[in-house]
């Protein structure tokens, strides 16, 4: 296989990891909403922690996107 074709296929495979990040972020917000609907007054205090969790989960998905971008634009 030509290197250019292999690069593009590899980039496509790597970008699948961003879907896993989307699932992770959805789980975090879903669990927060489940808890918040049971205990609304306590939910405002924890809302900041939700965004920390979201950023950490999304960070790992961004690493996958980074590999894809590296393969597309940086590797010759």
């Amino acid at each position, binding site marked *: 296989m030509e290197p250019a074709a292999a690069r593009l296929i590899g980039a496509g495979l790597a970008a699948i990891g961003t879907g896993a990040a989307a699932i992770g972020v959805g789980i975090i917000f879903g669990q927060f909403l489940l808890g918040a609907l049971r205990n609304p007054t306590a939910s405002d205090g924890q809302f900041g922690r939700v*965004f920390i969790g*979201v*950023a950490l989960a*999304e*960070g790992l998905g*961004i*690493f996958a996107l*980074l590999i894809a*971008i590296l393969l597309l*634009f940086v590797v010759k």
Partner: protein
Amino acid sequence: MAEENAMDPIHQFAIQPIVSLHPFGIDATFSNASLFMVIVVSAVAALMLIGTGPRALVPGRLQSVAEMAYEFVKSTLHMADLHDGMRFFPFVFTLFLFVLFSNLIGLIPYTFTVTSQIVVTGALALLVIGIVIVYGLLHNGLGFLKLFVPSGVPAVLLPFIVPIEFISFLSRPVSLSVRLFANMLAGHITLKVMGGFVVSLLGAGVFAVLAPLPFAMAVILTAFELLVAVLQAYVFAILTCVYLRDAIHPGH
């Protein structure tokens, strides 16, 4: 790449020298990256200096913004539970505002995003981890190494747990820098690609009626990038606080 002539989203990250300086053979060229770092620091200094100038009891708009930034970082430090929390306030405040303003100024068209360079985010992350390690060793002596031994672990498992904890500690600066860098890089590349789509569609004759679609997408993406800019700055600051808390009180 076949699309090289159509769209080049990487060119926006190229470092262009403005003033070439080589004192003692060291390359200290003043580049567009340096220029935007000066702009970011000037903007932060202007916000804080001019914002705290009128010491009105009922603050005006700029003073409100300066006070809200102070209160926000202060509440972040308190949420992270360090015992001498405000000691690290200047450090965390500087980090937070530098990363926030770099991310936000990078969203203006034709600017250069300082934090989209792995060198910049890597330097900031190494600074954070360096301060964590040095302060942890100064404060706890060799008790700092209790960080790698979680409490309540049976002694049989220790030879497996300690190397894993050590490696996960080493991955902290890597994840801290790459998270910020990759978020900024990916966001700006996506924006540039959407812009490239608009231009390509406009030049394709009958398909020019579809051109508003990628334009609307670019607007939505810019709004999302605003959220990501603020969120990544906040996450950088709060992870700094968490790592400092781990250094001061090692052993969960």
